[in-house]
C-alpha cells in the first residue's frame, strides 16, 4: 500500500510543479464565470440570468473540457515512463504493477479533483457575489452536483487514458488515440444517437437508454435532471421520471465507467512485456 501512496504523492507533486492544477482550475473558473456572465448575451442582455441557464451552460462546457483535460493529463502515464526509460526501473522495485498504476490513478485523480473543485468553486462564489437575486442553497446544490459529477467524469477519462497508455508502445500513438476517444464520446456518439432517433420514427422507447452507454451523457443527465427548469430547456422531463435517470443511479453508472476501463488497464499492464 505504501508504494501506491508514494507514487500518488509524486504524481500529485508533479501536477503542482507543472502547474497542471493551477492551469485547470484557472481555465475552468474563467470559462465558468464567463459563461455565467455572458450567457444571456444572445438574448441581448448581460449579467447573470437564471440559475438554470447557467447550470445548463456550465455542464455543456464541462462535457467538452473535462474529458479533454483528463485525457491530456493521463495519456502518457505508462507509455511516457516507458519512453523515458523509468518504467523498466520502476518495475524492478519492490512493488506490484497494480500498485504502480493505482498510485498513478490516485495522483492524477487528486490533481483533477482539486483543480475542478477549485475552478468551479471559485465560479460558484463569483456567481453568488455577482448575481442580484440568486437562491444560495439552490446554487450551492447545483454547483456541488456539478463538481462531484465533473470529478467522476474526469476519472472516467483518466481510466480511459490509462487503458490507452498500457496498450500502445509510442507516446504519439497514445496521444492520437486519446483524441479519438474524446471525439467519439463527446461528439460522434450524440450525433449517431440523433441519427438513430430520426430514423426510428416510432417505437423508439429504448433509445434514451442508449444514453447510459456514454459517460458524458450520464454526466449531462445528472446535472440537467437535478433542476426542474433545466428539464424544460433540455426536454428531459419525461426521462427524468424514470428511475434509471435519477442522479444517484447515474453516478453509480459513472463509477462503473471508471472501474471497467481501469480494471482492463490493470489486467493488460500485468501482462505487458517490458
Amino acid at each position: 500500500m505504501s508504494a501506491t501512496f508514494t507514487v500518488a504523492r509524486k504524481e500529485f507533486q508533479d501536477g503542482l510543479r507543472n502547474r497542471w492544477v493551477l492551469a485547470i482550475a484557472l481555465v475552468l473558473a474563467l470559462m465558468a464565470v464567463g459563461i455565467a456572465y455572458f450567457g444571456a448575451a444572445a438574448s441581448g442582455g448581460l449579467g447573470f440570468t437564471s440559475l438554470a441557464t447557467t447550470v445548463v451552460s456550465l455542464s455543456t462546457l464541462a462535457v467538452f473540457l473535462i474529458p479533454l483535460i483528463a485525457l491530456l493529463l493521463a495519456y502518457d502515464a505508462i507509455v511516457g515512463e516507458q519512453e523515458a526509460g523509468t518504467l523498466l526501473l520502476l518495475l524492478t522495485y519492490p512493488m506490484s504493477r497494480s500498485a504502480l498504476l493505482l498510485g498513478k490513478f490516485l495522483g492524477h485523480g487528486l490533481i483533477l479533483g482539486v483543480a475542478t473543485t477549485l475552478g468551479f468553486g471559485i465560479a460558484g462564489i463569483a456567481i453568488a457575489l455577482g448575481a442580484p437575486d440568486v437562491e444560495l442553497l439552490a446554487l450551492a446544490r447545483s454547483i456541488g452536483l456539478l463538481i462531484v459529477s465533473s470529478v467522476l467524469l474526469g476519472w472516467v477519462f483518466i481510466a480511459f487514458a490509462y487503458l490507452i497508455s498500457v496498450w500502445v508502445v509510442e507516446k504519439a500513438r497514445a496521444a492520437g488515440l486519446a483524441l479519438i476517444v474524446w471525439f467519439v464520446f463527446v461528439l460522434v456518439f450524440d450525433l449517431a444517437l440523433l441519427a438513430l432517433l430520426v430514423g426510428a420514427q416510432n417505437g423508439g422507447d429504448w433509445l434514451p437508454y442508449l444514453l447510459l452507454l456514454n459517460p458524458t451523457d450520464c454526466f449531462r443527465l445528472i446535472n440537467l435532471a437535478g433542476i426542474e427548469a433545466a428539464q424544460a430547456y433540455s426536454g428531459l422531463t419525461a426521462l427524468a421520471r424514470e428511475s434509471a435517470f435519477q442522479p444517484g443511479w447515474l453516478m453509480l453508472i459513472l463509477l462503473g465507467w471508471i472501474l471497467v476501463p481501469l480494471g482492463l488497464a490493470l489486467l493488460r499492464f500485468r501482462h505487458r512485456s517490458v
Partner: protein
Amino acid sequence: MNDIITFDGVTKRHGDVVSLQDLHLGVHQGEVLALLGHNGAGKTTAMKLILGLIVPSEGELRVFGATPHGSEANQLRQRLGFLPENVGFYEQLSGREVLDYFARLKRADRHQIDDLLEQVGLGEASKRRVKTYSKGMRQRLGLAQALLGEPQLLLLDEPTTGLDPAATRDFYTTVKTLRDQGCTVLLSSHVLPGVEPYIDRALILGGGRRLALGSLDELRSQAALPLTIRAKGDWAVNALPADLPAQQMQRLNGNVCEFHVRPKNKMQVLRRLATTPGIEDIELLPPSLEHLYTHFSATLSTTLPARDPS
C-alpha cells in the same frame, strides 16, 4: 562457495527468436562476474530474467534461492540493485528528489541519500534538475539509485557506456569497494578495456549461448592464444635471431619488433632474446580479454557451447 544465482538450463524465446539458449550458470557470492558479448548476445535478457521482468520459457532460475518472478519477488527485489542500459530519470526533478522517490519505493533508509550522492560525486549537483545533467552524471545518478538500500546483488547493464576514461575508472573503483564489502556484482559490457582488472570471472555469450565461462586465466589457457612479446633495440645493426619458435613476427617500427608466441614456447623465446646483443627492453603482453572474446566468438559460435572448466 554459495551460489546466489543459479541458471539451470534456462531458455528464453520471444516467438521464433531465441534470446537465451540452455544457459547453465552459477554466480558465487561476492564475485564480480562480467557478461560479455555483442549486442543481441543475451546479456540484457539474462539480467531481465534475474530481475523477474521476464519469465524463462524453459529451465529453472533461482536468485537467493527463490524464483525471481514468484511470490517472494518483492523481498528479493529489496536486496537487488539494478542499473539499466540507457537509464532515464524524471527530467524536471533534482537528483536528490529522484533518489528520494526511489528510496521511498524501495523502503530504504532515506538518510543515506546524501552519502550516496557524495559517493558517486554528485554532491554539488544534487539540487540541480536532472535535465541539466550530462550523460556521465546521469549514469552516476543511476549507480546511486542502484546502491539504495545496500543491495547484496548488483546488476549493471552496460554501466560505462558514454563515460570518459576517468569516470569509467572511478566507476569501477566503486564496484571494487562494493565487492570488498561482500556485494555480488553482475555487469554486462561490450567495452572490454577497463573491465579486465576489476572482474573475477567472465561469461562470454554469443547468439544467446554460453561460449565460455571462467576466470581470465582459465579462459586464456582454454583458448591457448599466443602471447605477444615486444622487443626494443637497434634492429638495423643486429640481425634477427634465426629459428625462434615464434608463430609470427612483425616490425612495428625501426626499433620495436613484435613476436606472437605459443605459451609453451614463451621461456625459450625470452631466453634467446635476452642473450641477443643490442636489445634494450623486452615487454610481455598476455592475451587480453579482447583477444579472448574475439577468439571465443569466432571459433565457438558455430559449435556447441564450451563445457564449464570448473
